[in-house]
């Protein structure tokens, strides 16, 4: 069934279809309409879930950690400083291997106070041990939420579904709502292998010593470092799992096929733009324009940011003439985070492309299709010889 609704409603619809059992959230712009919609669904009785109104984001995720540990499927959502207030629990969720799904409605981080969009909030949590998926339209938001539960529960790693504040959260777009029966066939009820209950009294994540130890049964109980190494290895394996899950979703619901990234006119492209989130929608048009003018341009719209698909990226971008990376976040004192990740992934390639990095849209600074066009044109025509090839789009306007 097609509807015409906002991105926040697309996310709420995905949560409802996933039959989430516990929702704990604290409203923050631009996530607020998402939690309001969920609260409305629960209040009106169309959605059988427990809605816990909490006093902070830290408590919101703490409630979800409790719910997941006791065997209930849980959801929360936040933005910007709300996410940062939650950070201790964000890292905890990953270390505890709880299959949480959270929407991050991307917004600039203060100070100074700013409610508009960029990616600094979720990018700052890049190394928290969560899987990160970036959606670029409403359909992807809804589908990603449902797929995220399947993925999280299969690999026992939490998933952030990130989408741009305002550009997606508050704009209206048509999207298809799949049948509940199809979603039920795709996403079985939640069972967790470490479920806490009176029959199995357990202390979860208490002091874990630097070394391993024999547990009370005499078996080797892993120390802190084994847990970290396991999370890393299994996060990497999640790339393959996500591809399989996406295939199953496509078979049942009829959409998907680009779980890692959308490749737009990439096949014979010499210059490829890379971006996360809704920027990709504008860059597609720019690629068309550049193609009309004779430049072999393409777009790699990355969806899966963590685990970072290094092999995919190397196969896709190695051997191109140039890669232009557009980012709405920065690792201060270095470069865009995605740019640095791409450079690392491309270093082993026999033929490395030239690379340029552009920072734009911070704190909601406007950008137009022409900005992407100009940046790509200028990069290609004025190849910088120096290492400092970071450009800022839209400063002083």
């Amino acid at each position: 069934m097609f509807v015409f609704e906002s991105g926040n409603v697309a996310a709420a619809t995905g949560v409802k279809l996933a039959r989430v059992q516990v929702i704990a959230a604290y409203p923050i712009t631009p996530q607020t309409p998402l939690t309001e919609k969920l609260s409305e669904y629960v209040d009106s009785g169309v959605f059988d879930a427990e809605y816990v109104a909490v006093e902070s984001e830290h408590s919101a995720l703490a409630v979800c950690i409790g719910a997941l540990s006791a065997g209930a499927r849980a959801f929360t959502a936040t933005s910007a400083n709300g996410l940062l207030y939650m950070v201790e629990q964000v890292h905890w969720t990953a270390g505890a291997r709880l299959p949480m799904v959270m929407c991050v409605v991307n917004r600039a981080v203060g100070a100074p106070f700013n409610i508009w969009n960029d990616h600094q909030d979720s990018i700052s949590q890049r190394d928290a041990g969560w899987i990160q998926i970036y959606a670029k339209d409403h359909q992807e938001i809804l589908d990603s939420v449902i797929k995220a539960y399947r993925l999280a529960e299969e690999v026992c790693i939490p998933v952030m579904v990130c989408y741009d504040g305002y550009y997606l959260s508050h704009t209206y777009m048509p999207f298809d709502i799949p049948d509940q029966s199809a979603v039920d066939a795709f996403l079985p009820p939640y069972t967790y292998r470490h479920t806490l209950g009176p029959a199995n009294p357990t202390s979860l994540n208490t002091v874990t010593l630097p070394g391993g130890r024999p547990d009370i049964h005499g078996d080797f109980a892993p120390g802190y470092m084994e847990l970290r190494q396991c999370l890393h290895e299994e996060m990497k394996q999640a790339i393959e799992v996500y591809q399989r899950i996406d295939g199953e979703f496509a078979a049942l619901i009829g959409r998907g096929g680009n779980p890692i990234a959308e490749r737009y006119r990439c096949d014979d492209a010499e210059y490829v733009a890379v971006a996360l989130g809704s920027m990709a929608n504008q860059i597609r048009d720019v690629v068309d324009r550049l193609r009309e003018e004779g430049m072999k341009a393409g777009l790699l719209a990355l969806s899966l940011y963590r685990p970072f698909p290094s092999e995919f990226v190397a196969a896709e971008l190695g051997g191109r003439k140039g890669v232009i990376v557009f980012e709405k976040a920065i690792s201060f004192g270095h470069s865009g985070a995605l740019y640095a990740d791409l450079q690392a992934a491309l270093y082993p390639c026999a033929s490395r492309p030239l690379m340029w990095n552009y920072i734009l849209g911070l704190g909601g600074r406007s950008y137009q299709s022409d900005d992407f066009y100009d940046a790509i044109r200028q990069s290609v025509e004025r190849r910088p010889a120096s290492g400092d090839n970071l450009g800022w789009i839209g400063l002083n306007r």
Partner: protein
Amino acid sequence: MSDEKFRVLTSDSYAGPGDAGRTGSWRVLRPVIDYEKCAPAKAGKPACFLCWLYCPDSVVSKTIRPEINLEYCKGCGICAEECPSKAITMVEESSFAEGDDQ
């Protein structure tokens, strides 16, 4: 739905002595039981056992002559505090010879 190739290591521990490692090395004060005062030891039958009940590390045995497993006892002193017969004294670890853990 879990896939067997995923080990999903988590740090879970179960009720029992020593599931947080060999914590006896943390001890500064050692509980020493005076069996002349200890109720079950004196009566020769099951009685009291408050030390067993209160020990947060489950290192006191529920036996006639309760024994403390010093490999894991952190020396918190709760047993000494709870003992109604004042049979448990907390003694400085430094007063025992090295290697003497009984």
